[in-house]
């Protein structure tokens, strides 16, 4: 199963807080984070990587990005 974190429209640092919450507390190994700015994309990727997670894919989706993370 994959959990989706929808952080679109939320400003710094909410997307990172939500991503880290899911990494620490969520049960699914695969997480998809949706963001709508490049800053959020960079911040989420940086935060996930620093938690030892693997960022599998970052692709444009709609007005923003879809970030696929696999928990480490």
């Amino acid at each position, binding site marked *: 199963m994959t959990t989706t974190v929808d952080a679109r429209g939320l400003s710094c*640092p909410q997307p*990172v807080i939500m991503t880290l919450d899911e990494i620490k507390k969520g049960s699914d190994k695969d997480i998809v984070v949706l963001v709508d700015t490049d800053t959020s994309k960079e911040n989420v990727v940086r935060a996930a990587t620093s938690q030892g997670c693997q960022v599998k894919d970052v692709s444009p989706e709609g007005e923003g990005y879809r970030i696929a993370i696999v928990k480490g």
Partner: protein
Amino acid sequence: MQAKNIFATRGGIIGVGAGIGILAAVLQKLGNPGNMGICVACFERDIAGGLGLHRADVVQYIRPEIIGFVLGSLVAAYLFNEYRPRVGSAPIVRFVLGVFAMIGALVFLGCPWRAVLRLAGGDGNAILGLAGLTFGIWVGTLFLKNGYNLGRTQVTHAAVGWMLPLIMTGFLLLMIVFPQVPNEPKSGVLFYSVKGPGSMHAPLALALIVGLGIGFLAQRSRFCTMGAIRDLVLFGQTHLLTGFISLVVFAFVTNLVLGQFKAGFAGQPVAHSAHIWNFAGMTLAGLAFALAGGCPGRQLFLSGEGDGDAAVFVLGMIVGAGFAHNFGLASSPTGVGPYGIPAVIIGLLVCLFIGFTMRRKSA
């Protein structure tokens, strides 16, 4: 996939911090006030004065650096396809936070940018301000951990995001139509200080060019002085902090080279030594910046890339400067203003109210 943004790397943010630190010290050499090569709060306050929103005659000048910050960011955002017009995340709350952020900053006499530039110039009072800033941001992170949130933005028309850049362009046009006349306090509709910090400024074109350059680089790197401290406290991340530290180090070295470093507490330029209120003023500013999601510089850069809520925060700061000087809330080198202390207390209570009442509805 886009090309990697080199400015968002560790080396990139350090380079941008270094550039800002050097340019700020050079702007001081070119005419800006002492330890105020760049101060977002002071410069927005000067803009409020130049427009006559307050009539403190020593701090009236439309600062081209601020105009450059917004327009430089706009250019970078368009060039790199990052312009995202968006609004609707509790704009009125952001306005109020902007007002009190400015009031807190003017009790200290500087925003986070100037706090570190004061430190880099040897002003020991800045240590109290930075401690207060850190404390205020720490309080802000407690709210963030407990679900504080101003809600989502909506995508909107491109022109909505142009509003603040257009306002800034309007300010620039006013400066060209009504240029400063030596020793005259007014030119057309604009006010110009003939003495005090407002009379001290780098040449318009140079200030504008430096502002544009910093706006461009800061948009690319996401440079944020509040985020630097917040990310360390909240996530243990040092990415933005390295940029902030780089700013201090390079401003310090440049000040030494230019002979602008003078260590001490007493007699520092545009500063006072009321330690408690230096601390408390910046606590208020730090908390307001944390609740609004960015330092005053970052709010300008976000405005340039289409964030209409950040633009509302900026307007809140400019209006807050009007209140600060009209009501006697702002400090001066002689000390805290007559009503500065109650204003800080009221501001802290307002921020606590916002922090406690605005939580995420659905997890």
